[in-house]
């Protein structure tokens, strides 16, 4: 693995924080990606769908722009297709059941001083680290 990306990490993190601040200040919404995506599945109000879709298209467009400007995205998949399928299912089910992911609980929930988000963030970080330990050092 490459050296830690200290500057990129801090600046990129601040950019993510800025995105969360803008969405809350302007639209009054939490920038939690799993929640924004999940709201597409069972939101009854049609007006609810458009901003969610716009955010997701923005995510893809932003990454596409970066890749275009830099001649490719930094992307090294860490699992085969079968594992990616299982992992994707677990990420979808878990974030739905647990009401959030790294952005909603981690970046936004902690800033709202939500005890639920603090507990969720600690649990998924520890479990993810444990999963990596078991799959890469034990089995």
């Amino acid at each position, binding site marked *: 693995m490459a050296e830690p990306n200290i500057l990129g990490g801090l600046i990129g*993190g601040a950019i993510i924080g800025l995105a969360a601040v803008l969405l809350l200040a302007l639209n009054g919404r939490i920038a939690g990606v799993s929640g924004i995506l999940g709201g597409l599945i069972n939101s009854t109000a049609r007006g609810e769908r458009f901003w969610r879709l716009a955010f997701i298209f923005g995510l893809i467009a932003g990454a596409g722009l970066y890749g275009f400007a830099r001649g490719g995205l930094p992307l090294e998949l860490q699992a085969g297709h079968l594992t990616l399928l299982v992992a994707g299912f677990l990420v979808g089910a878990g974030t739905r059941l647990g009401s959030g992911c790294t952005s909603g609980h981690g970046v936004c929930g902690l800033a709202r001083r939500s005890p639920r988000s603090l507990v969720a963030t600690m649990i998924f970080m520890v479990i*993810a680290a444990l999963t990596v330990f078991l799959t890469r050092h034990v089995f």
Partner: protein
Amino acid sequence: MAQIAVAFAVGIIFALGLAVSEMINPARVIGFLNVAGRWDPTLLLVMAGALAVTVPIFPVILRRSRPLLAAQFSLPIKTQLDPPLIIGAVIFGVGWGLAGFCPGPALAALASGSPGVILFVIAMLVGQWLVSRFEDS
């Protein structure tokens, strides 16, 4: 209409943050989670950078009576540390550790057109949909 434009712009900014910090790359995420290997602290710095912005500014925004473009704030209402929260976080943690993808980076990485990313996102939607079925009933 303005809110839709804001959401699109925020999505772009969010993805640029994920790309600049390399959190779009599962190798970086696994490097952070792999505490028994050559530990990569980059994800911690990303969280620190993001929280350095959101922690001081969120309370200032939420002191206002309403957001600039909407009638009211739409915030989570649950406060209980209930079993779904705990079990959901555990399930999400296993999936995150297996692939190194959480929802934001996975959706942004769709821009690469990688078949593995597309599979992950489809499975993620199925997982969300399945749990939402149980919520409805």
